[in-house]
């Protein structure tokens, strides 16, 4: 066995052996023995290597949860004995996770029950408040690999219950009315008027809640559209619904016939199903994150007697705060400690650490690497540089709304409909004036664009799920349309074109003795610093690691150890001493203070870029980079041209560049990954956030692309273009059906049975057509 029994990672040498099973790290082994001792061995039976490598966290990491006002945010219910809390656990990923989390009570008896919602990646936990605190529960979850995410998520609007109720009501009415209308269709009841009247009144009663409750969204939407002097598809739909209902009611109460109540209920039923299909979303992904979900919930403030934990909102200008290793800087502040190293990779996309000295201004959003520091708050979180960047673009998005293809069609549809209705009214005035009303009402009824309204949700909804299976998660169906119209693609460089997980490691001195390489290999494996891990990986299959003694690690600086009374150091220039170079991404390896090796670590570009570029001959492509021009030669080697690359772009410049392009009539796709792209992602017609880890934080965007599927980007465009063709085919079909119906209506011969057959058939054909065209083409994936 070559993989860790718990988490499935490739085993290092030496691995940890326990119960004849191999583990990659102590954390995994600890979880295994904990589960084992609580008879939860089944965890490993449901899935292979189901575990998650636990993150080593400080023991007081979740202390803030015991502050009453913060605790109250997460507790849903509490009495003297028990409390219920709902926690978001982003690492939930398989059925074994459900098994383990729902058996938490076996590990800790003070947890009373726990229930997992898999799709939302949430667990609802009930615990004994007298015996265990919320922070202890968080600690326990972190220990077994499910670190709770306490960032405040904007509540994802799933399918609302009231919507299901509306569908249920409409379906009920549709079925019932159909049942007792059947004899009428075949003319059986013509000689029995009292039975026909009885069923007609019954239809009226049953369809009343459908008219008043199930269909109300359409009235509201149509009313809003008319008030803002725009036309959407809901206008002709509402017109049709009202005509249908009014005509039927009139017929029922004047005892002329049963009306079209079955068609009416059917309309609403199918329309709502279409809407339901369109509104399904990815419950565990969040596309509109607030900045507050990125920052910590609570921070350590310095006070007269040590530190105290306060909620981030209570932070004031001038406060002194303490930030520890791996914590996020919560606000723009001045460094009080001597020096600090910060990782701004999420803000700028640049993974090399940034050094700051005493008195320097540190912007919010960086992550501290190394020793605890003290900061003086310069401005509160909600007024920090980062937050303002975020808020600036939030409003822009609304005005940038896309006009949907369907809405464009529906405008023509409505105009033609009214013209046809008036013309046939005039014609009938000459033939038989008593039929005018019947004809006009029938035209409105039969033209009600039910199939038209279903084409778009089903075509685009199916495309959405096809794309989702291939790693591109769209926020909603309008993004499919927008994606098909893209003419210009703009890339962020760092973290988007470059792969943050792939590195090129360059050794300046290659002719060192094997012994030294062995020491380097061993030394690098003992540090948790990302650069050190990269170096270790580069040496994985070469050289024999040697056993070293006296490890000393200074967080964020380097690591030292001794071998045969010589001292070796690996780390930054200041750590090994006497080197003046401070180039980022360079690691020094020294023997007794003398540098014997310089290691350059550079991020590598994604390998699929040249292929993608060759597919996009018809599109304009740009690269906007926050860095200087040092990577230009490499970009050119990949296939970019000098005039396509722009360097030293501030976040504002990126957004401005995109709106410039849009003014030229281009439809822009922005691909970015960091917070500094938030403005550009928001401005672009489609903003795609690239993410290495799907369920972690991503900047707000229209779509999230799993970085593993970056190479499929070209195919995604083709899929969206194909979807557009399918949409047109479906629209063609539904308009044909409407024309057939119109010919009946104009000749004043629209019998209830014609309406009752035509409407479901047209809707079902369109639904079947769109689903099969999309799924047959892509049922094996899109490669």
């Amino acid at each position: 066995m070559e993989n860790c029994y718990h988490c499935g990672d490739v085993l290092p040498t030496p691995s940890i052996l326990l119960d004849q099973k191999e583990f990659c790290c102590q954390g995994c082994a600890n979880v295994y023995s904990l589960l084992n001792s609580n008879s939860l061995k089944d965890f490993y039976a449901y899935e292979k290597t189901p575990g998650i490598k636990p993150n080593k966290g400080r023991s007081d990491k979740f202390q803030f949860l015991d502050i009453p006002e913060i605790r109250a945010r997460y507790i849903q219910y509490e009495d003297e004995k028990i409390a219920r809390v709902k926690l978001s656990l982003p690492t939930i990923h398989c059925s074994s996770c459900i098994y383990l989390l729902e058996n938490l009570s076996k590990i800790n008896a003070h947890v009373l029950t726990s229930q997992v919602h898999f799709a939302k990646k949430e667990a609802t936990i009930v615990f004994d408040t007298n015996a265990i605190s919320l922070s202890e529960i968080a600690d326990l979850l972190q220990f077994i690999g499910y670190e709770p995410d306490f960032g405040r998520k904007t509540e994802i609007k799933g399918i609302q219950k009231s919507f299901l109720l509306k569908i249920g009501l409409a379906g009920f009415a549709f079925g019932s009315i159909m049942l007792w209308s059947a004899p009428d269709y075949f003319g059986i009841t013509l000689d029995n008027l009292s039975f026909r009247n009885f069923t007609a009144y019954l239809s009226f009663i049953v369809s009343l809640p459908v008219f008043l409750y199930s269909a109300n969204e359409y009235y509201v939407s149509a009313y809003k559209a008319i008030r803002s002097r725009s036309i959407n598809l809901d206008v002709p739909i509402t017109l049709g619904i009202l005509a249908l209902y009014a005509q039927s009611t009139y017929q029922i109460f004047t005892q002329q016939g049963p009306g079209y109540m079955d068609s009416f209920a059917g309309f609403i039923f199918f329309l709502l199903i279409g809407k339901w299909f369109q509104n399904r979303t990815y419950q565990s992904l969040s596309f509109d994150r607030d900045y507050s979900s990125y920052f910590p919930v609570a921070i350590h403030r310095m006070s007269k007697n040590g530190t105290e934990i306060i909620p981030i909102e209570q932070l004031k200008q001038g406060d002194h705060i303490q930030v520890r290793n791996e914590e996020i800087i919560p606000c723009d502040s001045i460094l009080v400690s001597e020096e600090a190293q910060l990782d701004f990779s999420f803000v700028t996309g640049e993974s090399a650490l940034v050094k700051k000295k005493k008195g320097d201004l540190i912007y919010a959003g960086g992550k501290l690497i190394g020793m605890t520091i003290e900061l003086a708050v310069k401005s509160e979180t909600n007024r920090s540089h980062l937050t303002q960047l975020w808020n600036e673009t939030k409003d822009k998005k609304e005005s940038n709304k896309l006009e949907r293809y369907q809405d464009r069609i529906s405008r023509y549809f409505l105009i033609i409909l009214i013209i046809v209705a008036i013309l046939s009214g005039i014609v009938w005035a000459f033939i038989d004036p008593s039929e005018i009303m019947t004809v006009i009402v029938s035209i409105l009824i039969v033209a009600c664009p039910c199939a038209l309204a279903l084409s778009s949700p089903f075509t685009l909804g199916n495309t959405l799920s096809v794309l989702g299976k291939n790693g591109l998660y769209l926020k909603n169906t309008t993004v499919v349309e927008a994606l098909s119209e893209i003419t210009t693609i703009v890339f962020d460089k760092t973290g988007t074109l470059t792969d943050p997980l792939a590195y090129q490691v360059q050794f300046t001195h290659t002719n060192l003795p094997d012994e030294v390489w062995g020491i380097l290999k061993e030394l690098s494996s003992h540090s948790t610093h990302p650069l050190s891990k990269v170096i270790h990986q580069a040496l994985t299959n070469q050289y024999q690691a040697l056993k070293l003694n006296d490890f000393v690690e200074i967080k964020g600086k380097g690591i030292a150890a001794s071998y045969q009374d010589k001292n070796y150091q690996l780390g930054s220039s200041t750590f090994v001493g006497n080197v003046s170079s401070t180039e980022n991404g360079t690691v020094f390896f020294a023997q007794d203070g003398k540098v014997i090796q310089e290691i350059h670590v550079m991020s590598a570009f994604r390998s699929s870029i040249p292929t993608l570029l060759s597919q996009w001959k018809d599109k304009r492509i740009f690269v906007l980079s926050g860095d200087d021009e040092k990577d230009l030669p490499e970009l050119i080697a990949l296939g970019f041209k000098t005039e396509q690359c722009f360097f030293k772009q501030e976040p504002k410049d990126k957004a401005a560049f995109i709106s410039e392009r849009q003014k030229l009539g281009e439809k822009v796709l922005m691909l970015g990954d960091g917070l500094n792209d938030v403005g550009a992602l928001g401005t672009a017609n489609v903003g795609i956030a690239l993410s290495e880890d799907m369920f972690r934080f991503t900047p707000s965007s229209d779509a999230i692309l799993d970085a593993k599927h970056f190479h499929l980007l070209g195919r995604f465009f083709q899929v969206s273009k194909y979807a557009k063709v399918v949409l047109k085919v479906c629209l063609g079909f539904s308009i044909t059906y409407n024309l057939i119906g119109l010919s009946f209506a104009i000749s004043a011969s629209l019998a209830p049975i014609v309406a009752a057959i035509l409407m479901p058939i047209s809707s079902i054909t369109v639904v079947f057509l769109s689903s099969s065209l999309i799924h047959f083409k892509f049922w094996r994936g899109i490669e």
Partner: protein
Amino acid sequence: MGMIYLMLIVSLCIAVFFLVFFLWATKNGQFDDDYTPSVRMLFEDEPKLKDE
């Protein structure tokens, strides 16, 4: 003919019963999570420790 009235009423009552049942189930959260319960039911039952 009177029979058909009765049949109609009865069928409507049955339909209303199912409608009410559906409304109750929806409000009660039966459709909130459509995946987890399908996995949960497959877990092995273990002999309960007799603590209480």
